[in-house]
């Protein structure tokens, strides 16, 4: 009797549990899990969805080519370069935005005037539309744009630099744009973390005669290291899938030196209509993200203090 009652209870709980999870589960299955497996499957095919006129004859339009797409990827000059470019974006913007963000958060966390308006200034780019900001930056870095005028006015350059089409310069506007838009986020996260550092630690250090800089390196840095770790992961993933800020700058320029992984996936899928190949590129992107997240988790013991 008791057991039956328990069973009935369990069934009730099961029904309630799945009823509550159902909306999320359905969306998950339809829009995450199913597309994910479809990406895996398509990555082994040559497939152009735009050719499919009737879904009943779908098989006719798909040709299985095994690992061919993945072989092509490593000889695809543009895609290999886009991976390199994406790493350059990661290696430049992640450290700079994290260091600058921490410094500004540290300064803002102490006693300053007009704290809220100042915080707002750093925050606006983060909450704003990336296309709007990209449009502004593309305009600033035009041949006759504000940046060239300023640099020429200062006498630092003799003639305008071609920021958007010169391969050696073309990453710079994007790097600035990314730092500009991500700094506010880093700063807010650090400000929250800094509030959680006990004041008593600083007080004790002051009594021991530690300078402000020593306090920063010996107390603040270790205490916020879990946050730093979190930010490194979040920012790395954000950069690996960078698209908007790159897309704004690659419009029309034809060069390969500033394109990114997702930009190349987008153009394989929606300008070459190579949907099998684009899927294979997507799988490579996912592997890169998993690999670096794993490395970060492995390496965190060395420098993260919980």
């Amino acid at each position: 009797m008791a057991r039956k009652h328990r069973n009935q209870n369990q069934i009730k709980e099961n029904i309630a549990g799945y009823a509550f999870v159902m909306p999320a589960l359905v969306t998950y299955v339809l829009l995450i899990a199913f597309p994910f497996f479809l990406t895996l499957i398509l990555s082994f095919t040559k497939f152009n969805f735009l050719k499919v006129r009737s879904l009943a004859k779908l098989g006719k339009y798909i040709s299985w080519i095994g690992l061919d797409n993945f072989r092509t990827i490593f000889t695809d000059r543009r895609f290999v370069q886009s991976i390199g470019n994406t790493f350059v974006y990661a290696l430049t913007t992640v450290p700079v935005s994290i260091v600058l963000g921490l410094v500004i958060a540290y300064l803002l966390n102490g006693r300053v005037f007009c704290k809220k308006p100042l915080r707002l200034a750093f925050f606006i780019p983060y909450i704003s539309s990336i296309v709007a900001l990209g449009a502004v930056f593309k305009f600033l870095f035009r041949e006759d744009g504000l940046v060239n005028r300023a640099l020429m006015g200062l006498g630092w350059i003799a003639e305008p630099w071609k920021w958007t089409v010169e391969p050696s310069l073309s990453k710079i506007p994007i790097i600035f744009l990314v730092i500009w838009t991500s700094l506010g986020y880093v700063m807010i996260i650090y400000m929250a973390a800094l509030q959680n550092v006990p004041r008593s630690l600083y007080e004790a250090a002051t009594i021991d005669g530690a300078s402000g800089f020593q306090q920063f390196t010996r107390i603040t840095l270790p205490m916020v290291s879990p946050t730093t770790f979190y930010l490194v992961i979040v920012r790395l993933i954000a950069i690996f899938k960078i698209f908007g800020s790159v897309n704004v700058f690659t419009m029309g320029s034809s060069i390969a030196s500033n394109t990114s992984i997702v930009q190349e996936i987008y153009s394989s899928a929606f300008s070459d209509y190579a949907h099998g190949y684009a899927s294979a590129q997507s799988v490579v992107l996912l592997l890169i993200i998993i690999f670096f997240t794993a490395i970060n988790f492995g390496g965190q013991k060395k420098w993260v203090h919980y």
Partner: protein
Amino acid sequence: MKKREFSITLVKTLIIAVFALAFLLPLIWMVTSSLKNTNEVFAGNWQWLPREWKWGNYAAVWTDPDVSMFKAYLNTAFITVIGTVAQLIISSMAAYAFAKVRFQGKQVVFVLFLATMMMPTEVTIVPRFILFKTVGLYNNLWAIILPHFFNATAIFLLRQFYIGLPDDLMEAAKIDGAGHLRIFGQILMPLTKASLISLMVLSFISCWNEYMSPLIFLIKKPLYTISQVIRWYMLDDLQRYDLNMAAATSAIVPVVILFIFCQRYFVEGIATSGVKG
């Protein structure tokens, strides 16, 4: 001593203020360019303020018969409101189940959900394109809204919050004969208000500024979102930078105003997402 503290604070403020000003320069320049006329934007003897204030640029951008910013605002607001509200409700329900309902298979489902936190949606654009095209959601605002229904981060954060709520609250209600629906809807969910507001802010930012999905799924001009209107001006033959900047300003200023009024929630919302790695 007091005086010394004051001057240190002043110096710190100045340092940050210089940074902040550098941060705002591009935006100030965007706003002033949006009020110039086309020729003045590129005039040789360049100056910050417009010689003649062309408010008409905004009228042109907002009422263009082809791609109007007004229509784009409505579209974007529709996406943002429905996407955010649905995400909060669906995530709350799932979080409640994971935290407070003892159903079989809970761990498996939860781990499956968590696993997606690492997979960016960019990885699945091709299948999503195929899917939406097939079921007739292509060129439909719902193609942008639906993916917002599921958000693993929101579920995870809310679950943490529900776990933190004492079980006594539930037990008392259960004795009164309340089912899960009442416990969830009337007792526990109202207690998560602060977290919900934070998540709402995050969802708002991501819906409002979304770029890639509309680019792929919304190709009809009457369906354009704010991002696409700006892009349209960037690609337009006439290259009207004054209008382009007016469009960019139109996209940014309302969000900034909203931010000023709800600064606390924005900051808390962003910070919540990064409480712990």
